[in-house]
Every structure is written in C-alpha cells, then in structure tokens.
C-alpha cells in the first residue's frame, strides 16, 4: 500500500493523538535533584560525598570486616601454619618457592606461591574487588555516572580529555585491564593515548588499593594524593605536547532510576570472574617468579646495579628493587613485599608511589599492546620519563619538608 504525503501526515496525527500527552510539564523532585547533581556549585559537594561513601564503605567492608576481621585470622592462624607443617623439605628451594619463609608468622612475610599468593588473591583482593564493583554498578544503574561525566567535563578538558574519560578512570580503579579497553569510548587518537598513558601510570587498581588499605592505612591518603596530582600535572603536559584534537562531547543524561538486583548481580559477577581469570594466575605466577629471581640472586644484582638511582635519586632503600620487579607481574604483590622492608614512613610513601607509577602490570601491558603497539611504546616512553622525574620530585619534596 502506498500512502500520499497527506495520508502520511494524517496517519502521524492519529498515532500522535493516541500516544502523546499534551500539557504543561511540571518539574518533579527527582528532576530537581537531578539538576542539582549537574550544576557545578551544588554538584561538586555531592560528588565529593559520593566519593566519600565509596571509599568509606570500601575500607569498612574490605578492610575492617573481611580482611582484618576474618581473612588474616584464617590465613595467619590456620592456613600458613598448616602449609608450613605439611609441605615437605623445609628450607629447600621448592619449599621456598611454594610456601616461602619457613619462619614467617604471617602471610604477608611468607611470600610463597600458595601462602602469600592465596592470601593476596582471596584474603585481600576478592573482598576489595567485590565491594568496588558492587558500588560502581550501583552508581551506573542509578544514573549517577553520566552526571559525574558532565560535572567533571570542564576539568578533564584541561588535560585534553572530556567528561566520559571518568569511565575508564573509575573502571581502572577496579582493574586497569577493562580501564584500558574502555579508552575506546574516546573519539581521537590523542585522547586515547593520553588516557591510556595516565591510566597505566597514575591509577592504582582495586587489588593494589586493597593491599595499601591493609599495609599502609595511615599514609595511603598521601600516596593517593601524589597519584591524583601526578594524573593532572602530566595530563596537562601531555595535552600540550601530544598533537591531535580533543573534541567536545554530547551526552544523554538519563533520569535517576532504582537499580535492579538482577542487573547488579550479573554485572558484579561478570566483572569478578573476568578479574580473577586475569589476576589469579598472575598473582601466583608473580610470587613464583619473584622467588626464583631471589633464589638465583638476580634481584640482589639489580638492587646493586640500580642502588645509586634508588637510594640517591628516589630516596628509597636498595631492597625495594625486588618489589619493583614484582610490580611488573602484580602491583598488589609488590606493595605487600614493600610492607616487610624496613623504611621510614616517607620512604614507604615514595616506594608505594614508585610501584604505582612504575611499569604497568603484565596484564595491562598485554592489553595496551592489543590497543596498538605504537601507542604502547609511546606510553612506555612517557612512563620512563615520568617515573624518573616524579620519583625525584617526591624525594625532593621529602627533603624540603625534612622527612625524607
């Protein structure tokens, strides 16, 4: 059947009469609250409150309740002594790799594949990742994330990005791998390069944050402050020197909605499974490889060779060479290793910042290669310069404050 133009318009009118309600639209309370969360003057305090809730619930749930409350007791009081008893050949090289130090009385110090490896993965990272992804899914499904993107757009434009860059940034706080994948939502090569570089250098993953919460709870705030400051300083510099465009963005801000439990559980489950498929093998493998490197004397050798850089330039002990190598495999593991090295509080802050900004973990590295070898090489070049400059700057700040 072919309709004339007039018939088409008639049909449109009929459908419109049946489906469209005409009248004056009155703002609801939900609309008004939605507007408050977007306007900078009111939206920024709300965003600060949301972030506060995020971290407060994260540390209470993962740190106080699960890791300190139950997991430390389970692993240090039962699992570690049991492994030390049943595994044959105490003092041998295989024992050292699998169980770790036979005299260790806690899972952080043992550094064995099946002791520290399992403790880090199950005792620390699992509760941290679970609560992180649950809260992220809640914010996404409620409709807060697009509002946060609008709110932070102006700030992120200063570093060559736009509001949507908040998505890969926050995803990276869970795990850098999906964060790097999410850089695809940015339009230009310049934006993707800046984002990928900043994620690889300055955004600690959930596992690392979980470990920091456990081993350096008092100074963790300073570490995060250094990382956030570095994110913006080097983002600003990259925006100035990297050629290319940083276009504006248009975003549809949906109304606030009640999250559905089925959606939340699917999202959280999918992300946790994905994370563990990538992370667990690397945690265990990381423990094993680092132990082998210690056994063959490689880490002592690296420590000796780079001693002047570590001690004089970065202001951290020579012994941090081991954790820095381990950081390539797993950064959470590296922070756990740092916790057993004798250091001043400021040296600990510097060392943890170095572990964070140093080479991305191998899983992120693999993801970066997938996104483009040229971009990855560029990001690595930036990374080496940043580590050297920022590491030295943090040491200098410590010297000026008289705490280094």
């Amino acid at each position, binding site marked *: 059947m072919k309709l004339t133009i007039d018939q088409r318009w008639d049909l449109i009118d009929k459908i419109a009469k049946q489906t469209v309600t005409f009248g004056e639209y009155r703002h609801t309370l939900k609309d008004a609250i939605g507007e408050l969360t977007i306007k900078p003057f009111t939206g920024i305090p709300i965003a600060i409150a949301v972030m506060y809730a995020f971290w407060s619930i994260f540390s209470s*749930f993962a740190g106080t309740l699960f890791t300190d409350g139950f997991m430390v007791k389970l692993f240090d009081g039962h699992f570690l002594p049991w492994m030390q008893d049943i595994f044959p050949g105490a003092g041998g090289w295989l024992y050292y790799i699998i169980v770790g130090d036979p005299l260790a009385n806690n899972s952080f110090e043992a550094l064995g594949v099946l002791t520290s490896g399992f403790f880090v993965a199950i005792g620390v990272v699992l509760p941290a990742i679970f609560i992180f992804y649950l809260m992220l899914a809640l914010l996404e499904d409620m409709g807060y994330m697009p509002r946060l993107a609008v709110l932070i757009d102006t700030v992120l434009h200063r570093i060559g990005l736009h509001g949507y860059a908040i998505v890969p940034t926050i995803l990276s706080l869970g795990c850098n791998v999906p964060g790097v994948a999410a850089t695809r939502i940015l339009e230009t090569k310049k934006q993707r390069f800046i984002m990928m570089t900043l994620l690889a250098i300055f955004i600690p993953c959930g596992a690392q944050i979980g470990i920091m919460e456990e081993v350096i709870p008092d100074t963790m705030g300073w570490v995060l402050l250094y990382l956030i400051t570095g994110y913006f300083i080097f983002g600003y510099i990259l925006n100035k020197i990297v050629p290319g465009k940083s276009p504006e963005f248009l975003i549809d801000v949906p109304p606030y909605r009640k999250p559905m439990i089925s959606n939340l559980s699917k999202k959280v489950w999918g992300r946790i499974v994905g994370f563990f498929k990538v992370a667990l093998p690397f945690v265990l493998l990381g423990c094993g490889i680092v132990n082998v490197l210690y056994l063959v004397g490689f880490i002592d050798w690296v420590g000796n060779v780079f001693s002047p850089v570590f001690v004089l330039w970065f202001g951290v002990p020579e012994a941090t060479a081991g954790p820095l190598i381990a950081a390539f495999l797993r950064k959470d593991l590296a922070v756990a290793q740092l916790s057993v090295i004798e250091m001043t509080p400021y040296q600990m802050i510097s060392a943890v910042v170095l572990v964070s900004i140093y080479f991305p973990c191998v899983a992120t590295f693999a993801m970066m290669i997938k996104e483009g070898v040229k971009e990855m090489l560029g990001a690595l070049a930036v990374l080496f310069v940043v580590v050297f400059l920022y590491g030295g700057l943090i040491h200098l700040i410590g010297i000026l404050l008289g705490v280094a």
Partner: protein
Amino acid sequence: MAERSIAAIYFAILGIITTAFGIADILVTMGAGSFAFGILEIPGDLFRGVWGGFIVLSAGLFYLSGIRNFEDIHQFSKIVMGSILIWIMAGCDIFAMITESIPGGEDGPWFNTLNGFIGTYAPPYTPAVLLLPFSLVVVYYIYKRK
C-alpha cells in the same frame, strides 16, 4: 502558611547546627586532635574529619540555601539534598560500626561476643549520626508533597 513557617524555621535551625558541626569537624581535625562531649564525638582522623566535615558543612549550607521560598520544588530539592548528604555520612558511620561489631578482634574468637557486639553501638556518636533523626523530618514533607 503556619506549617510552612514552622518547616522553614526548623530547617533553618537544623542548617545552622549542621553547618556548625561541619566547621567543628574540620577545625578539630586540622588541630590534629579529637573532641568528645557527652554523646558527641569528633574523631581526629584526616579522612573522616576534613573530607567528612566538608560534606556535613555542605549539608548545612544546602539546608540554609533551601529555606527561602520553601514551596518551590527547586528550593525544596536543596533541603532534600542536605538530608541526603547527612544520610550518606551517617550511613557510612553506621556501616563502619556494623563492620567493627561482627568480628571478634585480632586475638579473640572468630565472632564478637554479644556484649562486645552491643557495646560497639554505644555512644559517643559522630555529628552526622546525631543529626540523622532530625534530618529524617524531610521524609514527611516529601510525602506531603506527593
């Protein structure tokens, strides 16, 4: 009309007290100490004090900026937002209490004793927890509007 005035006065007083608590939170923490008076306690940690204090202060300012022309939906939404900020802060503090009350402590049993469990919820409380019941009054006005 009278009820509207009562509501405006109520939220003005709540706004002033909330703002004062927020400023106290920040000042006590900046002074690197903690403060306790009766059932009120301001803990001295940087995370809770400065960051949390700023949120309580913002809640107070939301209340104060919303009291004029209270009937307007945009003004009323500021009052509601003030309460939401208090709920966020108090919710976090109460959640922290819950997570502390369940495990039995470093050298104790797996789970807390009943006395220990109940003891965790005893006063003193943070400013946001004390403000929580007063902030719930806004729920009445939300339903009244509907």
